[in-house]
């Protein structure tokens, strides 16, 4: 009774009315855009039955594609987890000539049409490319190998790390470093015990976004990947191929697995992030 009156009061006292309407809109909008299509994937996949699903997924080509997409994305996110913070740090802490221009460049992988990025990358790393030729001479093949897929995934993931980290670094004011110094900490202790823990939540959420983008990336990867089945073929492309073969069941099976795995990995990253956030760090 009491609780009921209370909630009633609070809805009356809201400054802007229309909670009911806007909530209904939000929920139906999300359902229409997100929930129903995703449910559709599951419904379709469920039609296969467990054994059918297993049959589709146990095919070596499918397994290799999934391994490449998820493994590559995790590895790319890990690499960006190391180098993204360095880039962000330099932009937050220092002033230098052309900083704005360089800064704008960080966003390019994000803003470019993915096909443009893909063509640029494959031209650069291809056997005749500026980087591809010398690397080839060293015996390192980038284009048309899993390494190429990985390079493209690092490329598109970088902006996520940099952009989520910058505000966090700005927030971790310089006075934190000064405080650590007055308390006797050396530089290494200041970085590992004060600055990094303070930005950990931002690091994790940046890595999560970079990972999600890399798993789902298509356009910028397929040109450089060469798409050799079982070697450099990514899962999203395989879905595309299955669809072109009118193999809807095969396509949805892969899609369902990607959906579940992505959700699981994102949930794990979010849990980590939540833990980091709960123990302080605004």
């Amino acid at each position, binding site marked *: 009774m009491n609780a009921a009156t209370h909630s009633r009061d609070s809805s009356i006292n809201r400054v802007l009315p229309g909670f009911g309407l806007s909530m209904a809109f939000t929920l139906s909008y999300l359902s229409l855009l997100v929930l129903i299509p995703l449910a559709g994937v599951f419904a379709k996949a469920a039609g296969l039955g467990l054994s059918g699903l297993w049959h589709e997924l146990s095919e070596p080509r499918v397994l290799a594609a999934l391994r490449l997409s998820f493994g590559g994305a995790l590895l790319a996110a890990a690499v960006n987890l190391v180098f993204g913070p360095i880039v962000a740090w330099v932009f937050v802490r220092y002033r230098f000539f052309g900083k704005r221009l360089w800064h704008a460049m960080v966003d390019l992988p994000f803003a470019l049409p993915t096909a443009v990025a893909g063509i640029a990358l494959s031209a650069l790393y291809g056997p005749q490319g500026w980087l591809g030729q010398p690397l080839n001479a060293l015996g390192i093949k980038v284009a048309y190998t899993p390494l190429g897929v990985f390079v493209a995934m690092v490329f598109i993931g970088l902006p996520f790390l940099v952009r989520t980290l910058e505000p966090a670094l700005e927030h971790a004011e310089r006075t934190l470093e000064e405080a650590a*110094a*007055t308390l006797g900490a*050396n530089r290494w202790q200041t970085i590992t015990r004060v600055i990094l823990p303070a930005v950990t939540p931002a690091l994790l959420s940046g890595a999560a976004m970079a990972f999600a983008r890399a798993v789902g990336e298509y356009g910028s990867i397929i040109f450089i990947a060469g798409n050799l089945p079982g070697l450099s073929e990514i899962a999203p492309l395989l879905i595309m191929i299955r669809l072109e073969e009118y193999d809807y069941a095969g396509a949805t099976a892969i899609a369902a697995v990607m959906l579940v795995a992505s959700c699981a990995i994102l949930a794990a990253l979010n849990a980590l992030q939540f833990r980091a956030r709960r123990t*302080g760090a605004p």
Partner: protein
Amino acid sequence: MDIRIEGLSRRFGSVAALERIDLHIARGELVALLGPSGSGKTTLLRAIAGLEPADEGRILFGALDATRLPVRERQVGFVFQHYALFEHMTVLDNVTFGLRVKPRRWRPGRAEIERRARELLVRVQLEGLERRYPNQLSGGQRQRVALARALAIEPRVLLLDEPFGALDAKVRKELRGWLRGLQRTTGYTTVFVTHDHEEALELADRVVILNRGRIEQLGPVAEVYECPANPFVFEFLGSANVLPAVARGRELWLPGAEHPLTGDQIFPGGEVAVYVRPGDVRLAGADPAAIPARVIDLQRTGPRVTAQAELSDGTRLFMELPHLHHDVSQLSVGAAVRLRLLQFRAYSRADAQRPGAGRPDSRQPGAAPSGQGRIAAR
């Protein structure tokens, strides 16, 4: 440990933030650095801590020349304006940080570190909050964590940057008294920065008034308040009326006065500016020795009456009069009155027109709206 500062200068580009500062702070003393923003007070504090390098001059802690000593070897307790607490650490971890980062050779054992931290938390009245995170604390509690963290390293000196700036008025009052007590019992040589003259006057043994990178005046609190060395200090320590006068030896003639004011200052003669606080003006009944004036504005607000009066030459001055006085309750706009100055200082016109004089910090709480009482001073 005492702090000795000799000829300290610090420049930012072409701007001198500190210019040849000489200052000695005795062991166990509590000193306030007071000044408007941009006066160099924070730069001076940071220079003592080593957070700001000195371009010239020396800083000594006791016999130790600390001028070139890096921050982390200076062993100063620094409380930052917004505390700079480590948000991802518990209160206990914050307080023990300075001990935990010591090289193993000098690091006390784990149990000893925790014992010391708990002792400090009792001292700053935060026992029981060891496991909290800073974002679960109130402003006052956060400040005390910062203080305990600074004290944990057994600092040579304690430095506080605007220690009460981020707190609301009530907490501020409480903490002031508490900090004063803590400083007395621990005996740390303490320097704090403030732009609030009331805070400085209430807390410090001595105040150092800074303006444009120089020391305008330093001395015991009462002395500085009663005998401001120059117009800048006078105006910085509260609102001021500036009245033109002509000096002849000890005598100061205000416009329209039949009798001179006599002060303890001697002037060779010529034009001077008489500075008087609105609260130091009283009605003098029909006393012929007092200054004739006319009331031009009157406001009765709460326990005080604020009025504006005009001298015979048009100079205006503000007065804050006690409400209960009979004369005051009879006062009306347009009335001719005679005024007495309880306390005043006179400065030569050259001093009063020196650059930087007459520009107290506008953020200064309790300060009159800018321009008050100076309307006809020029």
